[in-house]
């Protein structure tokens, strides 16, 4: 199997998770998330990010995406100040099913998203990685480039904050 083919297979395996992670990194900006994912693949294809030597390819890809997002944020911040660019947002995808339960699920999802939007950067990141993508706190620390102790602290605070923000939905914060 060629190197490019191996990289493509790996990327395809983690594409969904990578996009969701990019959504979290971009503050749920669909267009920006797609740009982050695409640029992450460019980094891999150009060999700047050697995924073949990574111990945990998924965590490695997520780490590359995080650096790409940070780089794009910096650039946008500079150009945004100069040109006052408006970043377009893609519409939220909708689901299909029973209108009543759909509305109820939709409201719940909206509330969860709003809550996620209210927690701070590092807490939001560790939440997306641990709750959203099923990484361990140790793996999340690797992706975020911080110590495990620091990641644990962010994780703990994120849980407390989310419990307060989501109080009243189902059983959250009920005990």
């Amino acid at each position, binding site marked *: 199997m060629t190197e490019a083919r191996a990289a493509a297979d790996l990327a395809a395996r983690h*594409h969904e998770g990578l*996009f969701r992670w990019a959504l979290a990194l971009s503050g749920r900006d669909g267009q920006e998330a797609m740009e982050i*994912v*695409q640029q992450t693949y460019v980094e891999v294809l150009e060999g700047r990010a050697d995924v073949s030597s990574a111990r945990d390819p998924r965590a490695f890809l997520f780490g590359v995406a995080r650096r790409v997002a940070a780089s794009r944020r910096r650039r946008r911040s500079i150009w945004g100040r100069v040109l006052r660019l408006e970043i377009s947002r893609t519409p*939220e995808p909708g689901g299909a099913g029973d209108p009543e339960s759909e509305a109820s699920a939709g409201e719940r*999802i909206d509330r*969860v*998203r709003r809550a996620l939007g209210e927690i701070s950067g590092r807490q939001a990141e560790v939440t997306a990685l641990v709750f959203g993508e099923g990484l361990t706190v140790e793996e999340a620390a690797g992706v975020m480039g911080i110590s495990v102790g620091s990641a644990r602290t962010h994780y703990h605070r994120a849980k407390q904050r989310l419990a307060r923000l989501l109080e009243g939905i189902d059983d*959250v914060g*009920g005990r």
Partner: protein
Amino acid sequence: MSAEDEIRKLIEEARDADSAPDFGSVWSRARARVGAGREGGGAWRWALGPAFALASAAAVALVTTALDTEDGATGGGAAIAARADAGRAGALLADLVAPEIPDGATDGVLGIDDDAERSPFDFAGLGAELETAMELAYGEAGSTAFPIEVGTDFLLTMEIPAWDGSGEGERNLL
């Protein structure tokens, strides 16, 4: 179910509502961007290469003129004479002049036009050779002679006289 599990469930529900764009199209665009980057890089190299070469040649010409003025030369720059020297081995400047040095070659530019005619894009290499030649010429108190290889049959020697502005030594021995 603990609050933590409930949060996890809610986040997973929100996560599953997000649909990722098709992998194939994103990957293809990334590949196209990589390809375009390589082509763009090549184009830049093609565009900048000759520009740097020309700038290098122009810089050498300017330095030559400046030094010429400082030495009080009456114009015309270095007087160059060339003579056949079939017995000398080794070459300092390769392919710098044509086998027959025209009269116009005594203009201090060391036959640059002749060389440019043969190899119009090799200004960078020519500039470096010119620089070496000028350093040698100015480094000596008297005239400086160095051989020039012309093909494999015979050698020419360029003779650059002392830069005293007198014009002595401006002779063509060919």
